[in-house]
């Protein structure tokens, strides 16, 4: 059964570029300068959308893992892997931009009062074990199964952790929700555009990576067909990524 992942990729990437540029322009020109935080507040428009998309990605990865366990089709494991993989990258971005914000606002590179930063630290530490876990299981079917169990457990853990840390820390940092509901309309608009831009970017990158993996797997199949016996490069070795 042939699945093509690159379909619609062109339209998606154009949409991503347009939305992203609009978002950044809005941040520079349209969004107001915050009364108490000053220009520093504008980091919010890159930090929070990154965070929301990353968290969504982790949960989506869990859902795709459920689909894999139900259907046992390799492509669901592939989707889960790519989504989680990209969310981890975004999570690093959240931690770095959050650090910069903390440093600019309160003078420290990390603050425990900031629930978003703390949750992301914990979640990042958890998901950082995803790749090593996959890599250490050689049998591809077992690897996919165990990775899916992990993705489901971790995906359920994310909202719980968020709730727990929120409960614990004093919120000295203005929450995204309150900002967009209490602030002027321009804040809301800019935030929503930035959020859509990040979401589009995430989906585009996911499709991009899945198409790339699909191509690699197809090339390998082709090689096996054409080269037959004298195929020196057929040894795939161990890999953390799912084999299609």
């Amino acid at each position, binding site marked *: 059964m042939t699945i093509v992942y690159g379909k619609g990729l062109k339209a998606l990437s154009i949409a991503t570029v347009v939305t992203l540029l609009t978002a950044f322009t809005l941040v520079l020109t349209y969004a107001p300068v915050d009364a108490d935080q000053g*220009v520093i507040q504008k*980091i919010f428009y890159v930090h929070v959308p990154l965070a929301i998309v990353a968290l969504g990605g982790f949960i989506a990865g869990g859902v795709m893992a459920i689909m894999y366990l139900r259907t046992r089709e390799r492509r669901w494991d592939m989707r889960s892997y790519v989504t989680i993989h990209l969310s981890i990258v975004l999570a690093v*971005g959240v931690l*770095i931009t959050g650090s910069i914000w903390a440093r*600019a606002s309160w003078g420290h590179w990390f603050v425990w009062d900031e629930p978003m930063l703390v949750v992301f630290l914990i979640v990042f530490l958890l998901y950082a074990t995803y790749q090593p876990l996959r890599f250490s299981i050689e049998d591809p079917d077992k690897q996919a199964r165990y990775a899916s169990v992990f993705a489901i457990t971790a995906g359920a853990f994310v909202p719980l952790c968020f709730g727990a840390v929120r409960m614990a820390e004093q919120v000295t940092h203005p929450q995204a929700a309150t900002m967009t509901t209490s602030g002027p309309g321009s804040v809301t608009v800019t935030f929503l555009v930035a959020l859509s831009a990040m979401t589009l970017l995430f989906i585009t990158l996911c499709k991009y990576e899945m198409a790339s993996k699909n*191509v690699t797997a197809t*090339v390998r199949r082709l*090689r096996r067909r*054409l080269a037959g016996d004298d195929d020196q490069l057929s040894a795939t070795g161990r890999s953390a990524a799912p084999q299609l």
Partner: protein
Amino acid sequence: MLVTALSSSEQYVAGAYLVFLALVLVYLAIMAVKLSRLEREVVELADLAERGDAVREDRVKEPVA
């Protein structure tokens, strides 16, 4: 220069956005490396396929004694 023209807090904001850009560009670079490797393999495979065609043509032309 441009950097000193920004106040220190603006530098932080610029830094944050640059981090985001850097992440995207690093991803781009990794994908570019993958693509070049893929191109090499596909070219090799195309060669293999053409060689295979040539061999088959020769085989067809050989008379069966």
